[in-house]
C-alpha cells in the first residue's frame, strides 16, 4: 500500500464484514513511532482461522481462501523494526464478549516506513460505504489530536438521515480536517 491509511481502510473493512456494530480506530503517534489499533466487536475468529490470517502461506489450498490484507499490514510494520499483534474471540466461543483487535507499531525514522497519508479520506470512505456501522476514531499526535464518534453524529441526525448522505460525509470530512489544522 502507498499509505498506511489505506491499510487502515482495508483492515477496518474486515471488521465491517464481520458485522461489527462498532469499529474503533486508534492512532497513537509520537515523534519516533506510530501505532495503529483497529478494534471491533464483530463475530471474531476461531483459533484455526486466526493462525491462518497472519501467514499467507499457511493454507495448502490452491484457491486463495484467506486474503492478503493482514499479512501485508504485518509485514509493513515489521519492515520498519516495529511490531504486530492480533487477538480475537469468536462469537461461538465467547457469545457475550467477542471481537478482534489488530495492532501494529511502526518506526517512523526507518527508511521502509510508509507515511500515514489521508486518514480523513479513509474515515469518510468507511462511513460512506457502511452508514449503518459505527466508527470511533481517535488520532493522538505530537501537539494535538483528532476525534470522531459516529454514534454522536447519528444521535444528532436522527433515524431518517443516513450517514452516507453527501452533505453528512462532506461535513464529517471538514470536521476532521479542521481538527488537524487547528492543532
Amino acid at each position, binding site marked *: *500500500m502507498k499509505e498506511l491509511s*489505506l491499510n487502515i*481502510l*482495508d483492515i477496518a*473493512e474486515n471488521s465491517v*464484514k464481520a458485522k461489527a456494530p462498532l469499529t474503533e480506530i486508534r492512532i497513537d503517534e509520537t515523534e519516533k513511532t506510530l501505532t495503529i489499533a483497529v478494534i471491533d466487536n464483530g463475530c471474531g475468529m476461531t483459533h484455526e482461522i486466526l493462525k491462518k490470517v497472519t501467514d499467507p502461506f499457511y493454507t495448502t489450498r490452491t484457491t486463495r481462501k484467506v*486474503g*492478503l*490484507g493482514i499479512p*501485508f499490514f504485518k509485514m509493513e510494520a515489521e519492515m520498519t523494526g516495529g511490531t504486530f499483534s492480533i487477538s480475537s474471540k469468536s462469537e461461538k466461543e465467547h457469545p457475550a464478549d467477542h471481537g478482534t483487535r489488530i495492532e501494529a507499531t511502526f518506526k517512523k525514522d526507518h527508511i521502509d516506513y510508509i507515511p500515514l497519508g489521508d486518514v480523513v*479520506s*479513509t474515515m*469518510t*470512505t468507511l462511513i*460512506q*460505504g*457502511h452508514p449503518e456501522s459505527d466508527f470511533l476514531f481517535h488520532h493522538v499526535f505530537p501537539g494535538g489530536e483528532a476525534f470522531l464518534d459516529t454514534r*454522536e*453524529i447519528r444521535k*444528532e*441526525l*436522527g433515524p*431518517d*438521515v*443516513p450517514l452516507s*448522505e*453527501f*452533505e*453528512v*460525509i462532506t*461535513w464529517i470530512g*471538514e*470536521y476532521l480536517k*479542521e481538527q488537524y489544522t*487547528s492543532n
Partner: protein
Amino acid sequence: MKSLAELQAIKDKMKDKVVLREGSAQKRVVVGMATCGIAAGARPVLNAFVEGVNKEGLSGEVAVTQTGCIGICQYEPVVEIFEPGKDKVTYVKMTAEKADRVIKEHLKGGKVVTEYTIAAFAK
C-alpha cells in the same frame, strides 16, 4: 470551529429530500473495495464518484455504493454500473479522472465510455 450542533441544520435541510429520494435511485455505481482494489487506488475513485455525482446533480437518480472483491484483481480498481433494463457495464483500471468522464458521458449523457470497459482491455 465546527460543532455537532451544525448537523441539526443538515438534518432539517435533508428531511424532505430523503423522503423524496427513498428508493428512487435507479442507477447504481458499485466500487470494489477489497484489499486488491484499495491497493490499486479504489479510494480516490470512490471519492470522485461520490463528489462528481453530487456536483452533476445526479444524486437523486444515482446511488454510489461499495462492495468487496469483484474477482478480477488484475483489473482493479473496478467499477460496475447497473441501470434498469440494461446490461451491466464493467469499467476497469479506473482513476479519478476516468471517473469524471464516466459521470459526464455515461451517467449523465447515457453513452458508455467504451475505451474504459473490460471488453476494451481484455482484447
